[in-house]
C-alpha cells in the first residue's frame, strides 16, 4: 500500500533522510520509530504531501506521489497529528471541523455523515456544536481522528497520536485506533518513539537513526526484545 524506494530528503544541502526504502502492505499497521532528529517526522511530512524537496519514488497503492501539490493524495491518506490542542481550528465547532472536508469536495448528506463519524469515534451527540476549548484532550483527539476519516481514505498517517495525552486517555485513543483499523481495514503509518505503543498497535516497525533505517523488525521481535542492531537494543533498554 505504501512503498518508499531510495527516498532522500534534503533541507538545503543537508540530507535529513538518506536512501530510505520501506514497504507497508495493505491493512498493515506500521511504525517508524526514532528519536527527535532521526528524520521520522520528515518522512511523514513527505507522505502527507507537505514537502517537495525529496528524491526517489513513493507509491501509495497505484498512485505515484508527485513532488508538490498532489490532489489525488487527499482521498488516499489523511493524518492525525500529535498535539490535540494545535490540530483543531480554535474558532470552529466540531460540526464545522467535520463538515469542512465534505464541503470542499462537494459531498452531500453532511448532517448524516457528521453524525456517523462522531458515533464511529465514540463522541456523544452533545459535543457536536462545541468549540475545541470546550473539549478535553482525549475528545479533541477523537475529533481529529473523525476528521481524518471523513473522506474515507485507506491510509492514515499517525504522528505520535497519543504522546500528548494522559496515560488513561492514551489507552482510550489507542483502543479506538485499533478498533477502527479492525473494522475498516485501514493501513496505518505511525511515527513514534514509544515502543510499548508500537507493541500494542502495530504489526511491523522500522527503526530510524540519523536519517537511515538501522533495523526493520516484526512486532514479535519487539515483544521478545530481539532486535539485532545495537541501537535497537539501546532503545529497548530505555523503554523499561
Amino acid at each position, binding site marked *: 500500500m505504501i512503498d518508499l524506494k531510495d527516498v532522500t530528503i534534503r533541507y538545503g544541502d543537508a540530507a535529513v533522510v538518506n536512501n530510505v526504502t520501506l514497504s507497508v502492505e495493505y491493512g498493515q499497521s506500521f511504525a517508524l520509530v526514532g528519536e527527535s532528529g532521526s528524520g521520522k517526522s520528515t518522512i511523514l511530512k513527505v507522505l*502527507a504531501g507537505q514537502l517537495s524537496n525529496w528524491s526517489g519514488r513513493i507509491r501509495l497503492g497505484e498512485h505515484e506521489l508527485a513532488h508538490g501539490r498532489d*490532489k489525488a493524495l487527499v482521498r488516499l491518506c*489523511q493524518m492525525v497529528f500529535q498535539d490535540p490542542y494545535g490540530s483543531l481550528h480554535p474558532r470552529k465547532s466540531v460540526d464545522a471541523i467535520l463538515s*469542512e*472536508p465534505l464541503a470542499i469536495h462537494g459531498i452531500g448528506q453532511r448532517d448524516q455523515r457528521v453524525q456517523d463519524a462522531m458515533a464511529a469515534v465514540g463522541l456523544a451527540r*452533545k459535543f457536536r*456544536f*462545541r468549540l475545541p476549548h470546550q473539549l478535553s484532550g482525549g475528545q479533541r483527539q477523537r475529533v481529529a481522528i473523525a476528521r481524518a476519516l471523513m473522506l474515507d481514505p485507506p491510509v492514515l498517517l499517525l504522528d505520535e497520536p497519543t504522546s500528548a495525552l494522559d496515560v488513561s486517555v492514551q489507552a482510550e485513543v489507542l483502543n479506538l485506533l485499533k478498533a477502527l483499523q479492525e473494522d475498516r481495514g485501514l493501513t496505518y503509518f505511525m511515527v513514534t518513539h514509544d515502543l510499548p505503543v508500537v507493541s500494542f498497535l502495530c504489526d511491523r516497525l522500522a527503526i530510524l537513526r540519523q536519517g537511515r533505517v538501522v533495523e526493520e523488525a516484526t512486532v514479535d521481535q519487539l515483544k521478545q526484545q530481539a532486535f539485532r542492531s545495537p541501537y535497537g537494543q539501546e532503545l529497548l533498554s530505555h523503554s523499561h
Partner: protein
Amino acid sequence: MMTVNWLMSDAPETRWQAGLGQAYRTSRALFANPLALVGLVIILGLLLVAAFAPWIAPYSPIESDLSARLLPPSAAHWMGTDELGRDIMSRIIHGSRITLYIVLLVAVISAPLGLLIGTMAGYFGGWVDRVLMGLTDIFLSMPRLIMALAFVAALGPGIENAVIAIAITAWPVYARIARAETLTFRNAEFMSAIRMQGASHARIIVRHVMPLCLSSTIVRVTLDMAGIILTAAGLGFLGLGAQPPMPEWGAMISSGRAFILDQWWVATMPGFAIVVVSLGFCLFGDGLRDVLDPRNRT
C-alpha cells in the same frame, strides 16, 4: 435564569445556540467594563442622532439668517449661531451623518483590503510576502494626513475623494496586524490538516485564516476610528474634504477660526463633538480589545 443557563451551556445543541451563547458571553464581558459601556453609549448616540437628524435638529443646517449672526449660546440656540446665522447645534447634528458616512466607508474599504493583503502575505510567505509587505511599508512610511492631502490634491476636493484618500492610507496598519497574526499560526497543525483535506488557497485564507485575524482587526479599526475622524476633520479644516455649505465638523472649526477670540463657541462646539465621538470609539475599542483579543485572556 433558564435562558442564561441555556446561553451559557457548555453543551450547545444547535449551531444557533452555540452562536448566541458566544455572543452572550462576549457582551456580558463587555458590559462588565464601565468605560467600554460609556463608549458604546456614545457610539449608539451618534448612530441615533445621525439616523434622526432632520427630526432632532431645531433649525435647517444650511439656510442662513444674517439677522442672527454669531449669537452666543442661549435657550433658542443651545450652541449659538455661526457667521451666517446658522444654528450650530443643527449643523453638528447633521454633520454627524457626514462623520458617520466617512468613518463607515473608510472602515468598509480599508479593513477588508488590509485583512486580505496581510493574510495573503502571511499565508504564502516567500516572494508574495516580500512584495506585499514592501508595498505596505511604503504606504506605512508616509504620514497619513500628508498622503491624504496628496491624494485629494490629485483627485480634487470632496467627501468621496477624502474617503478614498483616508482609506488608502489606513489599510497598511491592518495588513501588518493581519500578517503578524497569520504568522503565529501558519505552521500550526490545523493549517496542515486543512491543506491535507485539499482546500484551495483561497478557501483556506477566507474561511480559516481570516476568522482568526478578524477580532484583532475589528479592535484596531474601532481604535482607529478616532484617527479617521480627526483626519477627515483635518481635511475639512484645510478645505479639502467636505465643501461648504456642508456641515462637516472640521470645516466648521475652520470657518470658526476667524472668530475664535470673540465668538469662541463657533469653533469650540464642533471641536467638542469631534472629541466626544473620538473618545467614544477609543473607549469602546479598548473594551472590545479586552474582550476579543485572546492575548489578554488569562
